[in-house]
């Protein structure tokens, strides 16, 4: 029976791909958990990260993995500015206003990218991207392994930051009880701005790995956003382990859906899962 053995490949790929999705989702989860706003521009920021890496690659020959080191701080700074001057004001008015402003940002980013770099599809192509491993009869592309590795590294770093630094604990506290956090001496506005900055830095990193894994276009943002949401909703908010598992499940549902139901399945099964989880357990499978 081809069945079981044939499953090994989709399972492996699904899990590894899930790593990429985790990195994509972490930024969104952070913003949602702390600032309590859905950043609908998140997907577009990720794509912006991909283009950032692409520009550095094609113009300066910088390897995408190195771009991460440059992109993250740049996007961090951008994020702080955007939050302080745009989002913060919007949030003060209402949650819906923030959503709409984020939507506007999404439009702006998408069209600015399209204007500057044309609607043609791009990819971050490097020499090692075409490499693949052979493990136990499976062919695993190197990129996927890198995606997964990235997820692990990012998660560990974020975890340590949140648990061991005053700032990290301040972010956690502000996300659980903003007013009481103020009483601790935590400036919520500053914390929000920093959290958003971190989220954007994460998006930049995600963008680099996304660009190495898939071809991207300026309008790819919303699809990325939906993936990020799917992962966050599946895994629930508030813990990194949940987001990690959410990413794994999302990746698996894609590859297994594709394996059993063809390309339609690959695209629809994850959505279906998300809708189901949203309906019966909105706080996510592992959320609190």
């Amino acid at each position: 029976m081809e069945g079981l053995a044939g499953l090994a490949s989709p399972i492996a790929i699904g899990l590894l791909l899930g790593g990429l999705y985790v990195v994509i989702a972490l930024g969104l989860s952070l913003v949602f958990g702390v600032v309590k706003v859905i950043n609908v521009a998140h997907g577009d920021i990720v794509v912006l990260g991909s283009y950032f890496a692409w520009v550095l690659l094609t113009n300066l020959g910088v390897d995408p993995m190195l771009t991460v080191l440059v992109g993250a701080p740049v996007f961090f700074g951008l994020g702080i500015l955007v939050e302080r001057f745009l989002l913060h004001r919007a949030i003060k008015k209402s949650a819906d206003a923030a959503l709409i402003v984020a939507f506007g940002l999404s439009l702006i980013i998408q069209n600015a990218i399209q204007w500057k770099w044309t609607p043609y599809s791009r990819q971050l192509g490097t020499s090692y991207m075409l490499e693949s491993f052979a493990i136990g009869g499976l062919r695993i592309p190197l990129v996927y392994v890198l995606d997964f590795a990235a997820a692990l590294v990012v998660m560990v770093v974020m975890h340590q930051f949140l648990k061991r630094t005053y700032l990290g604990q301040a972010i956690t506290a502000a996300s659980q009880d903003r007013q009481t956090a103020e009483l601790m001496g935590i400036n919520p506005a500053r914390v929000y701005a920093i959290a958003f900055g971190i989220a954007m830095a994460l998006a930049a990193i995600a963008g680099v790995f996304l660009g190495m894994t898939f071809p991207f276009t300026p309008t790819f943002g919303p699809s990325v956003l939906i993936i990020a949401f799917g992962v966050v909703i599946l895994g629930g908010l508030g813990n990194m382990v949940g987001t990690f598992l959410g990413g794994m499940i999302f990746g698996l549902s894609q590859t297994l859906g594709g394996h059993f139901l063809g390309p339609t399945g690959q695209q629809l099964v994850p959505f279906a899962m998300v809708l189901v989880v949203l309906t019966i357990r909105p706080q996510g499978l592992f959320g609190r």
Partner: protein
Amino acid sequence: MRRKIPLSKRGSLRKRGSLALLVAAALAVLPLLGVPRTWLLYLFFFFVYLAAANMWNLLAGYSGLLALCPAAFIGLAAYTMTILTWLHVPFYVGIVAGGAAAALFAAVISVAVFRMSGIYFAIGTLVLPEILRLVFLRWRPVGGGLSGGGAGYMVKGVSKLSSADSYWLALAVCCVSVIVLAIILRSKFGLGLAAIRDNANSAASSGINVFGLKLYSFIIAAFVMGMAGAVSYTREGYIEPLSGFSINWLMIVLLSVVIGGIGIEIGPLVGTAIFVILRFRLARSGDVSLLIQGIILVVIMLVAPQGIVGLIRDLHRRGITGLIRDLRRRVEGGLGQRPSPILRVAGLRSGPPPVSAVSTPDSLSDSHAPKEEQTWEK
């Protein structure tokens, strides 16, 4: 839905009503006066967009439902009409059928999305058009299989439609939207919505069926929006998933409503007019056009979230100085605990800044009820 209007207001309502009737009649006659085709084109889009915008205003501005799925209703209705034309059903029947299909979809999907609170609702609805797009990409209920072509269908039986015919269709659906909205807002239904908007919890404890009212809004809006979308495609003549379920539709209604003033009855009227003019002016600039639209959206939300109509009203009420004072306070972003100069009545409010997007599981996206996160109320 019986009218409950105080006697004093009946006079002005009648005035307004007759004015509107006059305007509609004048607009209907327009094509017969030999106006240029481009006018009819502009107005066609204006009517279609206004119809959709009015309904979206009903959802987001009056019912507290920030539904990001107009494309779902529009695309579904348009597809229904198109498919029916392939089954020899005339398009004008198809338009109504399309609206009905969208309404049915809204009713069915509400089982899922209405369980989601606030932000999840917004996201749940955002995903819907995407899902439908994917479905219609594969599913070909009529006609042959894909033979290299897209997943689209031609709309049969509309090629002979003149500019005037399209124009009248659009005008008709627009009038429907205006009338429906007017009736709702002046009925008990509307009163209930206003109560919910002010404070969902006390509305519920007053015996108002919060869930039911929101559901009705959702379904009605889907119906009219669907019809508007179907009408739009009678002119287009061809529908495909990418266009029918495009996020473009959300942009259109969002901008139209926000520019004019969300939660204000004539907001979309002003907003759509400006939007259409803007769009056509910028059409030559291609990509920059959308870029500018995005910027406008952001700027308006930050500087004048009450929209242009709202701005004018505030101006009228407070004078320039009051407005500048307000603007300055807003820009400084402060939260002074000073008494606000004007005690605002239902529809606008002063008070602590609304913070949380995550509302209680039972209440839906309450865009206008400021709730201070975890207040220590005695």
